[in-house]
């Protein structure tokens, strides 16, 4: 028993010494709101799927392939966007998602799920083929995250003010797909 204890303690010590500061598996994915920064999130999530179970839009998904992040939730904003209800953050048992109140100001301050990237050549108002404005209409923070500029009322996105919920990406017409939310890279 004593030798076993010693071996166990040694293994634990080696393991603790070898822990990297951030998870090595660090895929670029859009995480649910309130998630810890990339690399930290994968360390704290135990894949219990409670966040996805309470998500009203069922936008939180789990990958079905063999990979180190198979047990971590992600959001595919192109198919279904987050409505920022913050229920998932209240369900998380390990604080991989920081608990947040469903308050417009709190969400604006604390949530950063991704970065908006607009391809102007595809955007209808920008390339002069239409008067669309869908992204502006669905944006939870209009005039802060996206404003309409010029005679064509073309959308102009402000990265710093965008929470990355992806409602604009979901709303953007199939033929255009001009606005895409890009996942945060590891800092």
């Amino acid at each position, binding site marked *: 028993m004593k030798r076993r204890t010693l071996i166990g303690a040694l293994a*634990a010590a080696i393991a603790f010494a070898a822990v990297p500061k951030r998870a090595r598996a660090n895929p670029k994915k859009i995480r649910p709101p309130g998630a810890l920064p990339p690399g930290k999130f994968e360390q704290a999530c135990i*894949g*219990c799927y409670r966040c996805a179970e309470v998500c009203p839009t*069922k936008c939180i998904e789990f990958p079905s392939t063999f990979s*180190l992040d*198979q047990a971590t939730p992600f959001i595919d904003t192109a198919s279904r966007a987050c409505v920022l209800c913050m229920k998932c953050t209240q369900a998380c*048992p*390990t604080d991989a998602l920081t608990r947040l109140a469903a308050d417009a100001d709190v969400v604006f301050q604390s949530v950063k799920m991704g970065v908006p990237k607009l391809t102007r050549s595809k955007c209808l108002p920008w390339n002069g083929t239409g008067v669309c404005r869908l992204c502006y209409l669905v944006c939870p923070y209009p005039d802060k995250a996206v404003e309409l500029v010029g005679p064509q009322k073309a959308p102009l996105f402000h990265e710093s003010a965008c929470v990355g919920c992806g409602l604009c990406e979901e709303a953007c017409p199939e033929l255009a797909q001009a606005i895409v939310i890009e996942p945060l890279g590891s800092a």
Partner: protein
Amino acid sequence: MAPRRPLQPLDLTLRHGRWYQRTRVAFLTFSVALTFVLPLWHLHSLDVAGAGFAQDSAWFRLGRAFPDQPPPFVGAPTSISVFGLELVDPLLAGGVALVHGVSWKWVWTVLPGVVLVLLLGRFFCGWACPYLPILAASNVARWFLTGLGFKLLDVPVPRAAARVALVGVLIVTALTGAQVLPLVYPPALIGREVFHAVFYGSLGLGALVVLGAFLFDTFVSRAGFCRSLCPGGAMFSVMSGLSPLRVVREKSKCTDCTVCDVVCNLGQKPMTDKLDTGCERCGKCIASCPTKALSFRVAKPALFRAPEEKP
């Protein structure tokens, strides 16, 4: 004359200790039902809310038993929220502690489980694990195939293999800094795969691990996965060294009939007092004993017993 078929666990009847067995089976059924019913219930309530049913309709009330509150049960036995009480499997919490660190919330979520395991030993395996129906199916398959005359393997995998698996998984967790346990630990896997199937209509590849465990248990070693591969079982076994609850045999009543040894899934041998920390407190040996020679007693925890007292 054909040789006699070896005694199988399903050949045995549970004679007494019925209240214990009923409580255990009821608890187990509830736990397994949670795993399967909760995703269905939550999917239903989301659909009801999304479809805009009138708030006084029966469908709406069925979907939301407690309107304007979070659902009373969320999750599966490895990580569940019961009326606001958060419970997380000590093993998964251990993985988080290893690579992410601990907080007060971590302590509160893991504490109930740790206290229960220290008191009752490896009881999760016999009372709540969602793998148990699959293990039962594997036992039925073994019983059926043996009845047909097949000779099934029962490789005695050393129990220490589970500890090696546990330490190995923890080392891989530490090296990658990602949570590996949810990918290989069947109770967590089964919950997530059931959820995956209900919500997205597909299975993740983690289901293959569960299938592999079933095939291993059926064709290689009876309950071999639980006994000597499951990292959760290994961890509960280690913690079980402090548990004071123990199956004790009255030598004068015992007739050496081997029934208790055969009925045990985890290879304990109550008939010769060879019980170690791997006992899952299912009580089937007690219930199957024809002469009531076995019973639960409060005894000195295995960790404090002198080596010569140990089996």
